[in-house]
């Protein structure tokens, strides 16, 4: 079973997680830039974070045979803090980077006017940089949040087929499916979906344009939940090909819209050049 986790915050995870993920079949991840739990108060804190998503984290992942890409954005939680707004002006510089496969996570937290502006501005940046957008749905007031999100997307120049709407559940799946966007489901203990409910939704709403992720981060989360979904799908009678579509081909197709997906790193790699630590001839 090959697995592409399209939404996981590896910054918060240990190398043991990378090892366990590789053993479970994970060969590629996308790490959306998001909130770190502790609010940032300076734009430069974001730049160091973006650098980590573009430099250190892909390097760390490659050592465990996992290809790492990221999405870059000013997240909705911090878009409300005027001290962080200068980040919006610096985003184009980061959206030009090879490792960036979408603008994200964007979307709503408290549905404020500041969040409206940040969302619309960043959807336009996705258009400008020929990137898809990864939009999450808010934790609170989710159904209303989805409606408003879809309205803003429709008003933007970004085609809905270039938008992934994430953290969906039973109450939002129908509206999201009707809209024609890509649908993301986070299998996250207690607060989001679980493997059996996910299988039920795959039965009722199909496997097309569906992505399953762990959304693992610094909270009570588990990077192996996509594997559990794959196992639950097989137990429920889905074929290996169905599992591969949901856990690999769908995320590859969505993030492939960026033209920047490079899955060559999805092989066991050595931390040193060419794996050779022995002095070669000459000097």
């Amino acid at each position, binding site marked *: 079973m090959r697995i592409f986790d399209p939404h996981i915050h590896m910054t918060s995870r240990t190398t043991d997680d990378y090892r366990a993920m590789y053993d479970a079949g994970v060969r590629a991840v996308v790490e959306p830039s998001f909130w770190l739990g502790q609010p940032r108060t300076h734009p430069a804190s974001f*730049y160091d974070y973006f*650098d980590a998503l*573009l*430099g*250190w984290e*892909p*390097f760390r992942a*490659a050592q465990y045979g996992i290809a790492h890409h990221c999405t870059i954005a000013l997240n909705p939680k911090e878009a409300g803090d005027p001290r962080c707004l200068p980040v919006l002006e610096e985003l184009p*510089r*980061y959206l*030009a*980077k*090879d*490792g960036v496969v979408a603008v994200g996570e964007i979307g709503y937290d408290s549905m404020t006017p500041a969040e409206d502006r940040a969302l619309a501005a960043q959807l336009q940046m996705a258009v400008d940089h020929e990137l898809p957008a990864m939009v999450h749905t808010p934790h609170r007031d989710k159904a209303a949040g989805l409606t408003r999100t879809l309205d803003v997307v429709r008003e933007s120049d970004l085609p809905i087929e270039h938008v992934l709407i994430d953290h969906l559940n039973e109450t939002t799946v129908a509206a999201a499916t009707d809209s024609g966007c890509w649908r993301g489901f986070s299998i996250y203990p207690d607060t989001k979906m679980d493997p059996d409910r996910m299988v039920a939704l795959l039965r009722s709403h199909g496997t097309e344009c569906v992505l399953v992720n762990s959304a693992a981060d610094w909270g009570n989360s588990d990077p192996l939940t996509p594997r559990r979904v794959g196992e639950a799908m097989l137990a429920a009678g889905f074929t290996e090909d169905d599992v591969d579509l949901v856990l690999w081909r769908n995320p590859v197709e969505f993030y492939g819209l960026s*033209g*920047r997906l*490079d899955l060559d790193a999805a092989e066991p790699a050595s*931390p*040193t*050049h*060419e794996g*050779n*630590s*022995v*002095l*070669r001839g*000459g*000097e």
Partner: protein
Amino acid sequence: MTAADRDRLGALRSELDERAQDWLKRALAEPDRLEISFAAAKRACGAPHAVRVRVALLAEHRPPAARLAELYRRGNAAERLAVLEALPELAPDTDGSELVHDALRTNDPRLVAAALGPYGACCLAPHDWRQAVLKCLFVGIPLAEVHDLAPRAAGDDELARMLRDFAAERTAAGRTVPEDLHHLLELTSRPAPARPAPDRSALDHPATGRPVADHPVTDHPVTGRPSTVPSPVDGPAAPRPTAPGEQRPTGQEI
């Protein structure tokens, strides 16, 4: 742009397809868009050419030190590597020693190795150079990637002491001593050259393939060990031919 730069650019162009050639032509003519084209080089010209395209952009636009530092600091690992690769081309106008030190502080072996290329070999003071070489042994970077290793190590008693201490610590912990360490220890026992060494090893060096003439030697003399610095060469030396499919280790696109 020097004659050598032009030759390199011509060779690079001949390897690019038509679309990439057009892109490069535009990028070379648009200094204001350097940040964007520098980031997009791999997508526009293909991974095998990305490092050389980025180096060519820097050689053409010759950004002032502050802008170069910003390209490095806001760059991903591949962009940072390209900046480090370009430092010999940009010398003596640009002092890149701060960037070399930054790369040496990272935990990314690719950046550490690139920092010990031809530019680092010249700009690092003895203490910093020894620490960097020791770091290579720690993180498993093949010492073959350290530019001018032999002439700098020759007669370096302090480096020899550090290596023996490191070996003793490893042995005490029941861990293996890197094979490279013994070879380097042997190099330190060779006599330091009394006069500027006619060192042309860069031409054959697996890690560089850069002509010796590109050394920023005149403006970046090694502070402590002038006797081991390769002497400046008048004309540009012929670049080492690159076999098909061959890549310089520090130039790997990532």
